[in-house]
Every structure is written in structure tokens, then in C-alpha cells.
């Protein structure tokens, strides 16, 4: 199958420093591509460019054959792109359920006038969205918190709420920025399974994660960034043996620990 998302020579700089420089790679449907690299390597910045939050200075983002470089995030969402955030972006004063329902915004929203006058079409859409959102909360293990105010959840729970919200869009491409941060090994594995499941349904997944066990376990392909540039790429086994990657990112000890864990 051909690629769904294609990143071509993306680059951006902040105050003269190149945060990302000439990064290219491709993601196919159903594939999990991980982007790893030291802190400050430019992973999140790359995500921000792909998802339209930053406008890239160089390069292109091609989604499903269409050039979507610098397109507004809500238009990208319409084209099937969805993401989570490293720095949580939660709708604090809404309930957990409502947070998840917003993920259905594109499917549920019709005309404002219909909403204002509570027309049947508006009600039906809202009902469907709610049912879907409850199913998703169950999948991430938050069904019991559905009616709680989202701002009151613990960090790890919020991470999972973000995943549920991102899934609610029914994305073709899903960008996950450190989904397992703040989760312990067991919780991480649950997320693992979830991601694998989603990928299996044909969604292209782009993952940033520092938990190497997880990355090695589920990635089809790994892209390594350092100082904004791609320094290596390949399948997990190849990448984890790459000396440049070990030196810059994994560290000898981590590898050893990985081996003994």
C-alpha cells in the first residue's frame, strides 16, 4: 500500500536556531512510525508543523496526496489528522465525557441555528457522539470518571483522556506525543495494546515516546532525530544497534538495563 502521510524536507527555526532541519519520511496506513531522539531534538516541533500549529519554513507535508503544508489544524482534522499533546491540552472545566465528545466535533457539528433551536438533527448528532465517547472512555479505562470535571484528574489519567479524544475523530493519521509519559510499566502496556489495535484498523500512527521498551515493541519503523536533523532510521533492531543513536540517545547503560529488564 502506498503512503498516507509524507514528510518532505520539513524545517523551522526559532531565533536563528534550527529546531528542525530537512526531515523527511513517510507513513503508510496501519503502520506505526516512531520518532525518537534526545530532549530538544525537535520531535514535538515536528509534530507541531505536521499538525498545522507551526507553519514550516521549508518542506512540505503531503496527506493522502494533497499538499497540506501550513494548513489550519481544524482543516487538517477534517482530512483525518488527529493528535495528542506532550503538554496536556485538556478542556479543564468540562467533564471527562464532554472532553471526549469534543473529539466528535466534526461528525456532530451541523448548523449553529439547528443547535440554538435544538432541532432534532442537532439532538440526534449529539446523542450519537455521546454514545461513541462513552465507548472510547471505556477503551482507555476512564469510564468510571466520565462525569468528573476533567481538571480534577491525575496526570496519567489525563494522558489517556487525550488519547480517547484523539481517537474520537476517527483519524486516518494519529500523532501521539509521549502517550505513555506518567504511566507505569503496566499502564504503558495497556496503551501499547490500544495503539496496536488502532493501527491494525488501518490508521497510520506517528509516535514520539521515550519509553524504549514500548517503542521497540510496537514500531514498524523508527526515525531518529538529533539537533533537528534525522540521524538514523530503520526498523527497531537496526536503530537500536546504531552507534550514533546509542551515543546520542539511548546510552550504553540504558541498553544494558533494557537487556536485563
Amino acid at each position, binding site marked *: 500500500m502506498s503512503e498516507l502521510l509524507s514528510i518532505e524536507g520539513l524545517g523551522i527555526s526559532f531565533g536563528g536556531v534550527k529546531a528542525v532541519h530537512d526531515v523527511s519520511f513517510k507513513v503508510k496506513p496501519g503502520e506505526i512510525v516512531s520518532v525518537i531522539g534526545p530532549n530538544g531534538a525537535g520531535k*514535538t516541533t515536528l509534530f*507541531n508543523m505536521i499538525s498545522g*500549529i507551526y507553519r514550516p519554513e521549508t518542506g512540505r507535508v503531503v496527506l493522502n496526496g494533497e499538499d497540506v503544508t501550513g494548513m489550519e489544524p481544524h482543516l487538517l482534522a477534517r482530512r483525518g489528522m488527529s493528535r495528542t*499533546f*506532550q*503538554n496536556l*491540552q485538556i478542556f479543564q472545566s468540562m467533564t471527562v465525557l464532554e472532553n471526549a465528545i469534543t473529539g466528535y466535533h466534526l461528525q456532530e457539528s451541523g448548523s449553529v441555528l439547528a443547535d440554538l433551536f435544538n432541532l432534532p438533527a442537532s439532538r440526534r448528532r449529539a446523542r450519537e457522539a455521546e454514545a461513541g465517547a462513552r465507548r472510547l472512555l471505556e477503551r482507555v479505562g476512564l469510564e468510571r470518571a466520565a462525569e468528573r470535571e476533567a481538571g480534577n484528574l491525575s496526570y496519567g489519567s489525563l494522558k489517556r483522556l487525550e488519547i480517547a479524544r484523539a481517537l474520537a475523530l476517527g483519524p486516518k493519521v494519529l500523532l501521539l506525543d509521549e502517550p505513555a509519559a506518567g504511566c507505569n510499566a503496566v499502564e504503558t502496556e495497556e496503551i501499547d495494546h490500544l495503539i496496536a489495535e488502532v493501527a491494525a484498523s488501518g490508521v497510520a500512527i506517528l509516535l514520539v515516546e521515550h519509553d524504549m521498551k514500548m517503542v521497540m515493541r510496537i514500531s514498524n519503523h523508527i526515525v531518529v532525530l538529533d539537533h533537528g536533523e534525522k540521524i538514523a532510521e530503520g526498523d527497531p533492531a537496526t536503530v537500536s544497534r546504531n552507534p550514533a543513536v546509542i551515543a546520542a540517545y539511548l546510552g550504553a547503560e540504558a541498553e544494558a538495563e533494557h537487556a536485563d529488564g
Partner: protein
Amino acid sequence: MSELLQFLFSGVTVGAVYALVALGFTIIYNASDVVNFAQGEFVMLGGMITWAAHAAGLPLPLAALSAIVITSAIGVAMNKLAIEPARGAPVVSLIIITIGASIFIQGAAQIVFDKQIHSFPAFSGDAPLRVGGATILPQSLWVLGGAVVVFVGLWVFFTRTLLGRAVLATSNNRLAAQLVGINTNFVMTLSFALSAGIGALAGALATPITLTAYNVGIGFALKGFAGAMLGGMGNPKGALVGGFLIGLIEALTAGYLSSTYKDAAAFVVILLVLFFMPQGLFGRKSTDRV
């Protein structure tokens, strides 16, 4: 050309008043992200207390000083009694508290003083200074000097002192500020004292020009607020420049276009500036990332 010069003098006179008020806003804003709508009342108190003290026989400098001290104390009281007990309340609630305080202070002033318009003698006489065919009052220079001195003071405070940094830190992240040992209550008290003091100074300096009454606060607050926003809220440089700009725009519009719509001109300029610089002229962008 003397006409232009006269317009500029007019603008500078008024602008200096606005700038002083705007500078008063910056401190409380920097400490708490709250625009204190009672700031104008501090200016009013500065003028009214100076007037009352002077009328009671105190020499002018002493009267002004007492106004500044008393107003600062009122500022501290406002923080202790109204702002601190509401800690953790949403910013809109805090704003309503400051509006409530503003109404309260006005109500108190009309009882303690009266509802008449007052003034007191200019600090160095009324003889206008002539420059190139235009005139300016010595009192305008006092206000001008006051604005510049306060600006320099604040600028040094916020950029050169650790305490100034602590004030910024408190508004940026109160939790973290406490964790690094900053007494955030003290910071708030300090900023209310300073803000109120600066407001009162503005009142004491400007009253010989603008006159004062129990209800002049709101007008000052509006113009000062507009000036501070034009310059970029929280930045002393912005407050100074914003205040002067508004004064100058008003005077030049009144002189060359239409005196009826001179306030409109000021707001049109603000809208234009904000269109291109959403943070005002010198405001800094918040740097929170996703």
C-alpha cells in the same frame, strides 16, 4: 510652527498623566495578572487627600506625601481584605472585586470628602513657560518628570532586582513561586502598596492641571488602561509609551481633525496597533508551548 508645538505640549501634558496611571496598572498586573480597575480611584484619592490635607493647613509637599502614604495603606488594605481572601478565584471574579472596590472607594470618598470639584496650587506656580511661541505649565513638567522617574524605577525593579523577578514569577506560576520560597502574599501586598502609591502620586501631581473630584477615577482608569494595553500590559516601557501616545493622538486629532472625535481617534489607533501587534507595542508573547 507654534501651533503644532502647542498641540504637542497639550498631548504631552495629558499623555504624562495617562502614562503615570498606566504605570500604576503594571505592578499589580505583573504580580497577579489582574487589571485592577480600582487603579483610577487611587489617583482620585491622591488628589483628594492632598487637597484635603492642604486645605487643612498642611504644606503642599507634606500633603502630597501624606496622600501617597495613606493611599498605599488603602491599597494594602484592599489586598488584605478583598484580594487575599479571594485567592484562587478565577480572574474574572478578581476583576469584579476590583470594580466593587472601585465603587466602594468612590462611595467612601463622597462621604469622607464631598461631591465638589477641587484643586490645589501648582507646585511651582502658574506662570506658563514659553517655548517657540507655545506655552506649557510648569506643573506639566512635574507630571512629566514623575512619569519618567516612576518608569525608570519600575524598569530597574522588574529587570534588575530579584524581588522584581519574584513579582513576575508570582503571576506566572503562583504554585512554583511558593515552592521556591517566595512569600506570594507579601509580593501581593507589596505590589498593591506600590501601585496605590504610584496612583496617588499621579493624582497629587496631576490635580493642579486636571482638577479632582470623588468621581474622576473611572476616567483615569479607562485612559490608563487603554494606554497600558496599547504599550503592552505589564511592561513599564509600554505603559510609558502607550500613555504618551494616547495623549498625543488626542491632542493632534483635536488640533487638526475634530475635537469631538479625538477619543475615537485614540481607540482607532489602538485597534490598528493591536491588529498588527496583538500584544501591544512592547508586550511579550506568552511562551507556553503545547
